């Protein structure tokens, strides 16, 4: 499966921009572990504790905890491509609607 980050109309990726300011350890874990695992396993990665489908939405959530940071990545799968739509710091026990809305509006723009 191919992994791509969502880009806006000017070709910039808010996800990559967010990842760039993270500690190196977290960057390595997100890029070379979670996203590489999705590249290899596809949706089967949901059979681990790292990824799950967001109930009621066509979105998947990757959970990352390292360097005292709780992070969530929201993605969608379009045929053989996983689009990383959004990344944010988790501060509550649930995924805030605001973050889901951001991911959904970016997902819409893919079409």
């Amino acid at each position, binding site marked *: 499966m191919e992994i791509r980050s969502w880009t806006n109309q000017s070709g910039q990726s808010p996800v990559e921009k967010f990842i760039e300011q993270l500690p*190196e350890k977290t960057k*390595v*874990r997100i890029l*070379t572990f979670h996203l590489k*695992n999705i590249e290899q*396993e596809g949706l*089967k990665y949901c059979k681990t*504790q790292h990824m799950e489908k967001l109930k009621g939405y066509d979105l998947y959530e990757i959970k990352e905890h390292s360097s005292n940071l709780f992070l969530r990545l929201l993605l969608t799968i379009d045929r053989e491509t996983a689009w990383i739509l959004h990344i944010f710091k988790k501060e509550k026990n649930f995924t805030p609607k605001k973050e889901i809305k951001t991911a959904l509006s970016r997902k819409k723009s893919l079409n």
Partner: protein
Amino acid sequence: MELNQYINKLLEKKSFRKEYEKQKPILDIARQVIHLRISKNKTQEELAKLVKTKQPSIARIESGNSSPSFKMLEKISKALGGKLVVSLIDCSPVNSPTITNISISHLNNYTQEQQDSWIFIHNTNNKSIK
């Protein structure tokens, strides 16, 4: 940007490359346990039962945050029909590439030629490797 392009770009930066090389062995092991377990259609609970441990221990190994013992890796690879392979390769500049690798593999993932070109340390007498 496509993932591999992005990783390659970041690997040009010394601090990222250093952290990547530090974490790679443990993340590789976690990835291999995940891959073998999923390909054998087993849940973490089922694998835990097979190796006589609890599900959180398997989750910890798959998190890439903890170093499993050789004994545990050996049990996991055996339970999943795989094989624990440890290869030690000379790191001196004349004998590059520089690789020290530990992996859990399906035997049929490798050709005989590949197997012959590596140094294998196997536990063949069912004693744990310390």
